[in-house]
Structure formats: C-alpha cells, structure tokens
C-alpha cells in the first residue's frame, strides 16, 4: 500500500473520529437530560407529568422512525442554518447529533428504570429534592448501564458517520465509496472495513471495561 493511500486512510479515520466524538459529546449533553426527563415524568416517578411525558415521547419516536439516510437529506435546510453549509464533515454532524439525541434519550430512560424505586423512596425520606434524587441516586446507580448504552450509541454513530459520505461528509465511509467502489480499488475497501472493525472493537472493549469498573453490585 502506497504512502498516499496510508495518508488518505489516516485522514479519513481522523474525520470519522472527529465526527463521532464531537457529535457524541453534543448528543450526550442533550440526550442524557432528555432520558432523565422521559423517565422522571413517567407515571409514579418523581416528576410525574403524563402530558409532558406523552409529548416528549411522541417527538422522540417521530425522529427515531426516520431512517438516517433520509433524515440527513431532509434536514439540509436546518444544517445550512446551523453550520452555514450542507457539505463537509462539520455539516454531517448536524444529522448525526439529531439522530443520536432521541436514541440516547430512550436508552438512558431504560437504564434509569432499572434503579429500584426503594432507593428513590429512601432519598425522599431523607428530604432529598427531585434534582438531588436525579444527581445523587438515579444517575450514579445506573452509571454502569448508562456507560454500556452510550457505547452502543458510539458504535451506531460510527456506522451512521460512514453514510455521511453520501452528502460529502468525508470519513472512512466516504473513502470506501469513492475509492473502493467507484474507482474499483478493493484494497481500499478492505482497508477501510478493517479499520472500522478495529475501531468498533476498541470502543466496545473500552466501554465494557469502564462499565465493569463502575459496577459495584
């Protein structure tokens, strides 16, 4: 493999990592509170509010039902509004973030549901506020599960970021399509696939390890 090729691959890898890391960071900042809201406003929980819960739930479901490749194209005007352009790595992050937020929301909701209600009750009996219950009970108690769920989201984002090549997003997926497929370079195709496999394995391995070290059960 030529030095050119290696340079292309490493640039594409850099773009993929950049897209995934930044989108993941933004989506987590918004998605985790969304998940907390989904859980705590549901029936019998500390901020019970059936109407709000229904509205948020419906919006989350609506976004999640749009296939990523369509979402990407459908929100081009929004992407232009936020980034200024609809083409390029940074532009590709808008649909990535938008798709990841409701996904994270639902997964966090699932994690929080696993915390026994008795713990919430115990905290209430000590005079804890709803915010304290979220911060000191719900989130720490479900942290191992949250880490596992977020690992899944990162891996999904790696896959989705490859599709972002379709709108000129760059990254490994883009490289595989343009060189591997359109220019008949099976070696490039294979190289990108191998890199993606290693990347996903690495993320999963680190995620598992972190989740395990946090789990005191």
């Amino acid at each position, binding site marked *: 493999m030529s030095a050119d090729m290696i340079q292309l691959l490493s640039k594409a890898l850099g773009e993929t990592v950049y897209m995934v890391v930044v989108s993941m960071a933004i989506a987590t900042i918004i998605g985790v509170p969304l998940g907390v809201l989904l859980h705590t406003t549901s029936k019998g929980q500390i901020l019970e509010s059936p109407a709000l819960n229904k509205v948020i739930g419906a919006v989350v479901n609506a976004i999640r039902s749009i296939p990523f490749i369509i979402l990407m194209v459908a929100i081009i005007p929004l992407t232009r509004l936020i980034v200024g352009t609809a083409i390029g790595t940074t532009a590709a992050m808008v649909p990535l973030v938008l798709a990841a937020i409701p996904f994270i929301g639902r997964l966090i909701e699932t994690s929080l549901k696993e915390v026994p209600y008795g*713990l919430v009750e*115990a*905290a209430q009996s*000590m*005079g804890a506020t709803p915010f304290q219950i979220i911060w000191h009970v719900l989130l720490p*108690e479900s942290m191992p599960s949250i880490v596992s769920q977020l690992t899944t989201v990162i891996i999904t984002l790696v896959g989705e970021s490859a599709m972002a090549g379709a709108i000129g997003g760059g990254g490994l997926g883009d490289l595989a399509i343009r060189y591997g497929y359109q220019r008949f370079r099976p070696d490039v195709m294979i190289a990108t696939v191998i890199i993606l496999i290693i990347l996903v394995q690495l993320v999963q391995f680190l995620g598992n390890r972190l989740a395990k070290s*946090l789990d*005191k059960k």
Partner: protein
Amino acid sequence: MIKLNHIEKTYDSPSGPVKALKGIDLEIGRGEIYGIIGLSGAGKSTLIRCINMLERPTKGTVIVDGQDLTAMNETQLRKARKNIGMIFQHFNLLSSATVYDNIAFPLRLAGTPKDEIRRKVEPLLKLVGLESKAGQYPSQLSGGQKQRVGIARALASEPKVLLCDEATSALDPQTTRSILDLIRDINKKLQLTVVVITHEMQVIKEICHKVAVIDGGVIAEQGSVLDIFTNPQQPITKEFISVLLSNELPAAFRGGRVEKTPQPGSYLLVRLTFIGESADDPVLAGMIRRFPAVEVTMLFGNLDQIQSTPFGRMIIGMTGPQDQVDAALAYLREQDLREEVIGYVRRHDTTAE
C-alpha cells in the same frame, strides 16, 4: 410525639378506588417503641409511609413533634423529614457508594461540610459496629450488616423518630435478634421514638412497648404489648399470638369433642395465665393440697417474658368427684391469675403411644 387523626388513604386502580386505610387514629408517645402489626395487604406499609408523607393521606392529619405535616408544602416537608429517619425491608442502600458514603448521604444532601460529616459518621459506624467496613460496598455485606448501615444512615441527620418498615423481614432469626437489640439500644440511648411495622409477633414481643393490630385498613385492637399478649380480644390478634404461643393440646385430648357439661370420665380443661408476680406463686400446689380428691394433669406449660414481665401459660386437666372439681375451679378463680375454661374433654381411647 406522633399523632394520627383519622387517616384515610384511597388509591385509584383500574377497577375503581381502593381504600387502603379507613380512618386510623393513633397516638405515639415520645421515646416509645410502637409496633404496628398486620397481615400483608392490611395497610400497614401505607400507614407508616403516611407518617413521613411518602404517601399523602387522602384525609386526616399527621402531626409529628407538634408539626402538622399534612398542611406543609413540599419544601417544608423536606425539611421536616430530616427529623424522621426510616429503614426498609430491602435496606435501599446506594450500591454505587461505600458504607461510609451511604451513611454520609443524608448529610451530603443537607450540604453539611466535609469535616463535620466525618465527625458524625465515625461515631455512627462505631454505634452499629461497622468501623472496619467503612470502605466496603453494600454488595460485600451480609443482610444484617446492610441493615446496620441503613440504621446508621437513618440516624445521621439526628432524627427524633425512626420508622422501621419490615426492617427484619428479610433477615434470618439470629440476625433479626441482633438488629432488634440494636434498635432497642438506640431507643434507650438516644431517647428516640420508634415505629415498627411488621407481620411477625416475635418482633413486637421483643422490643415494643405498645402495639396496634391493623386489619383491613382499620385498627382492630391496640394497647400495651403485655395486655395484648395476655388478653387478646380480636380473632386477628389471637391468631397472631397463637403463632408464638403454642396452644396445642396433647395428642390424647386433641380432636376430642369439647362438651359444656361433665361426661363420665372426662377432664375439665382450664387454661391458666400467670402475669408478673403471680407467675411465681405456688397456686397449683395449693389447689392440689386443698382438693386431694381431684386428679390434676398438666397438659401444657410455658414461661415467657414480655418486656421483662414474667408471663406463664398452662393448660391443666382436672377430673374427680364433680363437686370437688367445681370447688377447685372456684379456688383458682379466687387466685391472682387469669383462667379460661375450655370445657370437658374425654381422653381418646386410642392413645396407646
């Protein structure tokens, strides 16, 4: 210390409203250990949750330490709850926090400075005997140790009331005993008012001063533990007590027909209850000496202690000339003990054991 005025609690369920509590009046004095016993579904868990307003009663008022909790808003209530510690059947410890951090938890919630937390948590660790476990996580502890952490955590905010919700129901008998001993110690040492919810009469007998029997959302019977034990009125109370105090007749009499009138060769069965000083009196010996014609057999006997008061129970059978048996019974009635005539029962013929 705690006053419940006509508490009602109704839940909405798909099949219509369910009345869990139907008007409960209860008064618990400062420093008392008050037991509330009932079968599952009797409403006892709902009742104890009404005391710290984890469940808001549908009707009625809850007054703790002179404050009407039912009239408070959420912010006032959170402050008031710091006066009321609570421990749970399943401990409800934070699995992600160490023993030390679990005990420190209510103090952290209250924004207590770090060094003050240390000053408070360390004696608590010592009080519950877990100094060496401070850095361990709940998953590394036994059930009894977990409940000790629960107790220390409940005491951290220096409450005046401790609510125990089936605190020993998930523990084995030996551990139960040690946890009950700890609760009794704390009650004495800290002058804490303790409310104990349980379905085990043993727990009531071990530590409680007073008891209320709750059945179907109402209080069936209440009073001092000694009174309830020695003179239960309601069938539900008798049932709870019978678990602890065996009332079985010996095989030779069991299943025989109990007659109201004497039959040839039948024994008059009498249940005797001795309370306090009278447990030491030689009542039976006196009776036997006075009525030598009456043959007395002892069918069941047991001496127990409730709140350090001796409490003896006995079932005797008497047979002989009818006038002598009647006179012996009359003699027993004059003595300082409680007697209850079961009836005349004949020995089985098939008792060649």
